[in-house]
């Protein structure tokens, strides 16, 4: 009967022009582009291929962390341990290589450390209903403690095979990349597919939308929650590997507060901390924003320590405000 008539009309009235869910990501993108343009006009040598590829190279590990963090945040959780797990992974890599273990054995072990810690988080959070913040905070202390136990001092990595793996790939002219960028890109691709084209991914979103609802919908909440933390832990382990490649060393104090960078990147990328909405591509844009802020600071070149912090804060604020304005305009 006429029931659906008004509905049809409303459906037509709120057209598909642009899904509101993409707005924050779009906002991030626009502001990022804006920053590049402003930077380019303000500083010489800013918009060179070398600077742009450095942006990716310097932040490959953070991209991987942010990707993992996105899964967790989408479920409405948080993972504070990633910085410490990253450090642990670098230390494990360096220590094992120093002890003469072969690279093909060391790499999976380093990543696996993260996986195991992630699994422990998942179990604590799901089975024992410990709040994610606390469980992963404990995980953070734990991983840091292990780092110190293994090696309080930094260990250089001299293994030729590993060094080879960590070296440059010339693409064209000044465009060059490291394999970490490639790995980060693959991780991103896999994460995107997992989130948007698998039941696991959609369940991640569903849990963020409402755990109770997801449970009553008969979705595998338990498995998915645990898996989300496993993904994050694994990404942290992998991030550690990338960082070890980047710095060719393992050090127990690396990555202090790096979890905040990862969380900030995810949130700047338009993901809500309450879970359920956001995109992994946004998180990568978030990482690029943070990286770009850092680049701008170095190009500025005259900031004292305190102005550096203040400028970072202000840029972050400008960024968040612009993004907010852009995404509000259309609602």
């Amino acid at each position: 009967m006429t029931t659906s008539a008004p509905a049809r009309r409303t459906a037509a009235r709120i057209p598909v022009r642009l899904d509101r869910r993409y707005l924050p990501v779009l906002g991030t993108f626009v502001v990022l582009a804006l920053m590049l343009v402003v930077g380019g006009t303000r500083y010489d040598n800013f918009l060179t291929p070398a600077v742009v590829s450095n942006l990716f190279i310097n932040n490959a590990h953070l991209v991987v962390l942010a990707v993992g963090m996105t899964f967790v945040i989408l479920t409405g959780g948080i993972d504070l341990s990633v910085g410490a797990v990253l450090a642990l992974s670098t230390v494990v890599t360096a220590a094992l290589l120093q002890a003469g273990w072969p690279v093909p054995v060391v790499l999976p072990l380093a990543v696996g450390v993260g996986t195991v810690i992630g699994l422990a988080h998942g179990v604590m959070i799901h089975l024992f209903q410990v709040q994610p913040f606390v469980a992963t905070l404990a995980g953070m202390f734990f991983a840091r403690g292990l780092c110190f136990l293994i090696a309080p001092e930094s260990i250089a990595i001299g293994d030729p095979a590993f060094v080879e793996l960590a070296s440059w790939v010339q693409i064209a002219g000044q465009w060059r990349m490291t394999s970490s960028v490639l790995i980060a890109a693959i991780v991103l691709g896999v994460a995107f597919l997992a989130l948007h084209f698998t039941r696991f991914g959609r369940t991640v979103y569903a849990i963020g939308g409402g755990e109770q609802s997801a449970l009553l919908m008969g979705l595998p909440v338990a498995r998915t929650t645990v898996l989300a933390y496993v993904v994050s832990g694994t990404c942290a382990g992998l991030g550690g590997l990338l960082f070890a490649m980047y710095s060719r060393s393992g050090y127990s104090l690396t990555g202090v507060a790096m979890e905040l960078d990862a969380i900030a990147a995810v949130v700047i990328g338009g993901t809500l901390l309450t879970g359920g909405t956001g995109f992994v591509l946004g998180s990568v844009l978030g990482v690029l924003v943070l990286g770009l802020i850092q680049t701008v600071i170095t190009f500025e070149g005259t900031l004292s320590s305190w102005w550096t912090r203040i400028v970072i804060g202000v840029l972050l604020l400008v960024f968040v405000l612009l993004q907010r304005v852009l995404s509000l305009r259309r609602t």
Partner: protein
Amino acid sequence: GTATGGGGQSGGADDGVITLGFSQVGAESGWRAANTKSIQDTLTAENGFDLKFSDAQQKQENQIQAIRSYITQGVDVIAFSPVVETGWDAVLEEAKAAGIPVILTDRAVDSEDESLYESFIGSDFVKEGQMAGEWVVDQYDGEGYKVVELQGTTGAAPAIDRKEGFEAAIEGSDLEIIDSQTGNFTRAEGKTVMEGFLNKHDDIDLVYAHNDDMGLGAIEAIEAAGMTPGEDIKIVTVDAVKDGMQALVDGKINYIVECNPLLGPDLAEIAKKVVAGEEVEKRIVVEDQAFDQEAAKEALPTREY
């Protein structure tokens, strides 16, 4: 102003101005602030420098990033105080490939290939610990002193080296380190840890703190426990910042080994030499003094930091 450096041509010295990119660890302590100030005050336009300064906020990745950025900006010299000892080979190789000389300040890098940097200017932390230890042995050996140690940040080079130097120096004496905890180089933690030590031991005779700040924290704790620092419990520290020297003059600290943060003039000199293509020494050890109460009284009025 906007960046100069002239698009990749690293011959910025043609115009007589040396563009120097400096990447500082952070601003984690008063010592570091003095260090930064010395560098910023020395490498000025009047002295023929164009200083590009960046603060890595104690993150190695920021530092690597800054150095890479200096390379792409094409500076004449890069100088930095590494956050960690390891992990610099890759980026230093890049600098070398780009023909930009690198000077290390304050902390060393742990690299096999010494050609990656021109020179390392800084104190010898082991020696600092040793000087402290030697003085203690000289003064108190034979009295069975019980020593507690306030360590620096776990795993940091100064903490490791100062511990090592001190232990080596007191070896063979009857001084005994009965407890050792990290105070993270800060006053507040120095105070808390010292409070804990005082709760735990009744027989502490001497505190060895890896920097002045922790020593100053320990003074507060000792006073709060109703004892007199410098008398009931002796205090020996490293750094010799102004506050520490004041405490030394006041008799609350007994001995301070200096760790000189004023690396600016040395850095300027070496940078000029390097750009001019002159040969420089690989290792330039900054001379550290040590002060007892008498020496401190003399030095304090002219102390800059």
